[in-house]
């Protein structure tokens, strides 16, 4: 055994060696602070550069059509010019397609994700809950092109098509379900989007529900609540802001999803109220036409990009306002 190891200084005067100004703390913390602050700023700079660059590239289109003319115009005719804007560019059909498919997706996925999350946290036998949760989270990692392929080649013809035919037969008189049923269209795109965003939303809602304090639930049980009452009156209200966060994340993904929508929405430039109709979303239209676009059209696609950014932002702000307003009336501290 090495016994010659230098002994720690023992004498009091030894312990007073050095000056108080030479410690590591004077440098280490400021350096760490600047690194972290730098990373934070970098994100903002990238975002600003992106917004400025796309907006300035898209500017000629906005200049010709007018800002609202571009957003609300529903005619899209590409021109072939290299230097000026000769076509007509109205992005409304794509904005509409984006909003409709995302709305369908969220309307289906939100209640489903809450129910699955409640099942996983409160109902499933413990032996099943863990593997099921992992599976759900795994699903969130499946690339969207796979959802698109599966949706188009199996789910659409085997499940959705028969369902749509039936739906059209029963509710065809209602403008949302007016025929003809073409197969691809807003509804199948929205449904596949719902399946796509379900895992990530479920994972978040499950997480939020799982961390709800058990003692509050016990208090509710001790007052004679049924499990249903504990979940709907105690657990879910307390999880409200988390559920909205999950919905916002799902909505963000649904709004921006490109490839699966491209494969299922039909790719037309039309728009109409019927959910069986075909159309395009903003992202799918960009992806579908960017390759062969003339310089002029490319500018117009850039403008769609700007519009998509705006729409996503507005939807997010709206959601936040809703949470904030509801939180105010409920006296919810957790917003």
């Amino acid at each position, binding site marked *: 055994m090495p016994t010659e190891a230098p002994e720690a200084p023992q004498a009091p005067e030894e312990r007073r060696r050095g000056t108080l100004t030479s410690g590591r703390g004077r440098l280490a913390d400021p350096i760490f602070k600047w690194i972290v602050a730098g990373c934070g700023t970098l994100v903002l700079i990238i975002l600003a550069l992106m917004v400025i660059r796309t907006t300035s590239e898209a500017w000629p289109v906005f200049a010709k059509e007018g800002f609202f003319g571009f957003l609300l115009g529903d005619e899209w005719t590409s021109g072939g010019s290299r230097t000026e804007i000769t076509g007509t560019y109205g992005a409304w059909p794509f904005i509409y397609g984006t909003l409709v498919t995302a709305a369908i997706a969220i309307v289906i996925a939100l209640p489903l994700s809450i129910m699955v999350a409640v099942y996983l946290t409160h109902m499933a036998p413990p032996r099943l809950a863990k593997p099921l949760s992992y599976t759900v989270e795994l699903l969130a990692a499946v690339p969207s092109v796979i959802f698109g392929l599966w949706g188009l080649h199996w789910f659409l013809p085997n499940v959705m098509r028969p369902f749509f035919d039936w739906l059209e037969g029963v509710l065809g008189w209602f403008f949302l379900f007016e025929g003809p049923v073409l197969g691809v269209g807003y509804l199948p795109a929205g449904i596949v989007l719902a399946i796509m965003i379900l895992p990530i939303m479920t994972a978040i809602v499950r997480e939020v529900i799982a961390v709800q304090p058990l003692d509050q639930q016990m208090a509710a049980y001790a007052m004679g609540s049924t499990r249903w009452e504990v979940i709907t009156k105690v657990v879910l*209200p307390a999880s409200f802001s988390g559920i909205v966060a999950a919905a916002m994340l799902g909505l963000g993904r649904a709004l921006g999803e490109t490839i699966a929508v491209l494969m299922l929405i039909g790719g037309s430039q039309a728009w109409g109220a019927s959910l069986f109709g075909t159309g395009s979303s903003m992202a799918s239209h960009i992806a579908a036409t960017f390759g062969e676009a003339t310089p002029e059209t490319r500018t117009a696609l850039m403008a769609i990009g700007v519009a998509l950014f705006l729409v996503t932002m507005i939807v997010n702000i709206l959601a936040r306002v809703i949470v904030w307003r509801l939180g105010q009336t409920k006296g919810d*501290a957790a917003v």
Partner: protein
Amino acid sequence: MSVSNTAANPRDPESGVTAPDTAAKGRSTPELGEPVFDVSGLSVVYGTNRAVRDVDLKVGPQQITAMIGPSGCGKSTVLRTLNRMNDLIPGARVEGKVTYHGEDLYAPEVDPIEVRRRIGMVFQKPNPFPKSIYDNVAYGPRINGMRGNMDEIVEQSLTKAALWDEVKDKLKDNAFALSGGQQQRLCIARTIAVNPEVILMDEPCSALDPIATLKIEDLMYELASEYTIVIVTHNMQQAARVSDRTAFFTASVDEAGDRFGNLVEYDETSTIFSKPSDQRTEDYIAGRFG
């Protein structure tokens, strides 16, 4: 406020009855009476572990029964068998018999929801809902579909819990804004609001400061004229101060080396604290262990 007790109730301050011979606030211990709970041969099994064994206990009406003992002696577990809260713990099983007014609490046709409506519970840590003070109290009456003026129910419950004067001007405020002691009294008000017969208290003061503890103890004393109260406490002085009867539990080890909780002695509080019949009780009371 309808008080069901008679003038002879020693707790009624107007009755003028004082009995200086007991430790508990100078009142005489009432007769046990027709028992509310009759626990016999009770064991609680978690999985394969018989955590609590062979408990026999009778709880009298409109009295305060205290369960004391060191950690791990099973007193909270026994408390939770009285309103079937143990049902919520996966793998927990109850053996033996627990009757409530002669009715088997664990009979297959008994609805645990109704059991818990009648036998309320207050927990160790104050656990109000993240809602307004009003909504906290109104929760129970609402889910139980109680008829009547909700404002009145809320006011009555808060008054009984000695909290009304402190919160009457801020009923819409979030319950989390209250102090710990106030939150615990809110939880008591919330329990009272569903009109239970029994209130179980699981170490209700262990998270509170001495002043707040004293307020809760005074409150228990008040409530005992109307409700049957069973309290689990770590605090021997608390049991001595408030309870009529005390059950002393301890943790033992069997031949196989497994720890389990069991009831050592159950008697009037004054007896337990002055002349206990079991050496282990005496050691615990004297502070020699636990």
